[in-house]
């Protein structure tokens, strides 16, 4: 026994920190980046790749980019020319909405955030009252945006940019959710005719691309309506988007309904509840809770899909972007414009998917490795 070694009474040995090579930063590097020769080579390759990509991206977006100037001729540094965004920023946000009325979309946007928060998070004080406001929000928003009752009316063909994208996204979400629930319940109904109709609708819509449905809404819907009745372009697109996403929503909700054990249905029946009572009070609260992440994912898809309305001639973010690109003053700046729009979409979609992940973890009670 060496002299330096200290003696401890049984049970008195202190918890020593792990050796330097087994824990902490160095160990992490050793384990995750340089565990073997192959791994080390991979790490070096990845570092080189990162350096290559990042230096190009940073040069293009920041160092070599032009932020101040008047025309395209001012962009001489070799990187991106962000002037087009600054020049048309108002269009990207509001489309052709009259300048003097910009406060209305702004107020609507703030109210939208107030309306969304109680829906997303369940630990808010006075959540019930806030939820009441959330239900009323679509009507308030419509009134604020389109005007009337003393406010200047703004035709929906003047709505554009981010404003229109949000209007399409929110309306699509609000409309597709109840329709989706009805379709999902119908698909599991005991009445054969109702079931067949719902299955046909869902499978038909899921089998065709959204753009054909939008073509149908913009070309065929006017033929279906009686003479004199005319839906404006935005409403037609909204109907198409809402019908399309409701079929996908129905399938997600059906997944939740199928996951509810049969005993719950039987229990509700035994309590003497009617069909709608048992659905509203027993089944749907549980089923929807299970599939919230799936619902959020459908919403992300719907939000991204709203960009397709630019093909049928609405000026959402992409529509406005295409107008900007076609401008002689800014010809050839398509990459800058599209990257800017991509960034806007990335921010909203990524936060939605983070939210869905957070919820999934919150609802997840299984075992994890």
């Amino acid at each position, binding site marked *: 026994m060496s002299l330096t070694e200290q003696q401890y009474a049984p049970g008195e040995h202190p918890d020593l920190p792990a050796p330097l090579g087994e824990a902490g930063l160095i160990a992490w590097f050793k384990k995750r980046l340089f565990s073997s020769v192959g791994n080390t080579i991979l790490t070096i390759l990845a570092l080189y790749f990162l350096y290559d990509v990042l230096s190009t991206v940073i040069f293009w977006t920041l160092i070599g980019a032009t932020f101040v100037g008047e025309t395209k001729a001012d962009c001489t540094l070799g990187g991106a020319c962000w002037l087009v965004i600054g020049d048309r920023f108002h269009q990207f946000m509001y489309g052709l909405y009259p300048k003097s009325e910009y406060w209305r979309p702004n107020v609507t946007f703030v109210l939208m955030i107030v309306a969304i928060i109680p829906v997303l998070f369940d630990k808010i004080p006075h959540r019930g009252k806030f939820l009441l406001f959330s239900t009323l929000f679509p009507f308030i928003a419509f009134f604020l945006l389109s005007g009337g009752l003393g406010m200047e009316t703004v035709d929906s063909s003047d709505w554009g940019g981010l404003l229109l994208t949000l209007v399409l996204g929110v309306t699509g979400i609000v409309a597709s959710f109840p329709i989706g629930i009805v379709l999902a319940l119908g698909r599991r109904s005991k009445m054969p005719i109702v079931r067949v109709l719902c299955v046909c609708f869902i499978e038909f819509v899921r089998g065709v691309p959204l753009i054909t449905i939008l*073509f149908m809404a913009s070309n065929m819907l006017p*033929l279906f309506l009686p003479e004199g009745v005319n839906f404006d372009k935005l409403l037609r697109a909204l109907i198409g988007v809402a019908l399309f996403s409701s079929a996908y929503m129905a399938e997600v909700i059906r997944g939740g309904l199928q996951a509810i054990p049969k005993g719950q249905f039987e229990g509700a029946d035994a309590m003497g509840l009617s069909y709608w009572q048992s659905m509203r009070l027993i089944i749907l609260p549980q089923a929807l809770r299970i599939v919230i992440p799936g619902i959020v994912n459908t919403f992300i898809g719907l939000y991204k899909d709203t960009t397709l309305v630019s093909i049928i001639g609405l000026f959402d973010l992409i529509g406005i972007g295409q107008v900007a690109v076609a401008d002689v003053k800014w010809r050839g700046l398509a990459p800058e414009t599209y990257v800017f729009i991509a960034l806007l979409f990335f921010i909203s979609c990524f936060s939605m998917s983070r939210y869905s992940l957070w919820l999934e973890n919150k609802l997840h009670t299984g075992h994890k490795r």
Partner: protein
Amino acid sequence: MSAETAQNARRSGGASLFTDQRFRSLFYQALVVGLLGAFIVFIVFNTAHNIEKRGIKTGFDFLSAPAGYDIAISPFLEYTSQHSHGRVFLVGLFNTLLVSVLGVIAATTLGVFLGVLRLSPNWLISRIVYCYVEMTRNVPLLLQILLWYAIFLGLPSVKQSMSFFDDTFILNKRGLILPEPIPGDGFMLVPIVFVVVLIASFIFARWARKTQETTGKTYPVFLINTAMIIGLPLLAFAATGFPLSFAYAELKGFNYQGGMSIKPEFTALWFALSLYTAAFIAETVRAGIQSVSHGQTEAAEALGLRPGRTMSLVILPQALRVIIPPMTSQYLNLTKNSSLAVAIGYPDIVQSFGGVTLNQTGQAIEVIFITMLVYLTISLVISTVMNWYNNRVRLVER
């Protein structure tokens, strides 16, 4: 006793008819059918009236009428503006199928590769793939198509074309120009040999498996088959005296003549579709592999299997069961998303037939009906094939 009275009461009283579940269900269904029927009659009536008023023709005669417009990309069928709308339909359909099939192949290859890399023990690699997946998934596909198209259109003009390998490959804003292969006499032997070898290798693989199951003797099936599939057609190619020549493109006037040109519309659409779907497939593959319980890996290791064999014999067969259903929907999505071609003018079925033909003839109902029918058929075929494959790899339970 009381139940009997209740039933009697139910039978006798007309007022309590509504409390009978069967009657109620019949009543609701009749109501639904009635409402739907009224709705359809309403629409048909309006449509007939509107069509008559606007002087729109009906019927499918337009399919044989000359289309009168050009289509830039028609790799399989000869097409001029004198051809009919029916021909436009076929050209569009083939273009849709072309970009979908190539997209599925590229997306699957890249997606599986990325999905495996995402699970790499190397932190840096896994993070890079994660960033790629998140960046691609959270940006609308339409935007990505437009962005790729803008990038390809930003390439140098014809005069300043980029040239690789002494004008073998030429790249400019009008596309990528490749030498066009011209098969000579006896070249047909090569594909024939290829098909024969493919069938032979399949039979050999089955035989080797049977032999292994009965006797335990193993053969290097993968090695032998790869050598056969690559080697024998090459041998046939050499035996017939390399009967293949190439036509190279030459700059004549303002554009290149000859050679095969791949248009930027196709490349942009194909790139965007493949890269976008690959991100989703990567996540599917990752989730599938992670879904296999860790105990399976530990058990395989305890049995002494090497990591490669653990993957191919234990993990992958189980992961496939989880991967295939979402993979099917990704393939379906890719095919449906190919309709976004309309945004950049790649003449797929929606752009050419559903777009230009619709505008020229004005027969929205017929055109949209046919277009939707095509997509429904494609969806049905893909899901049937994938369901068949899914049934094959499914867990066989007693």
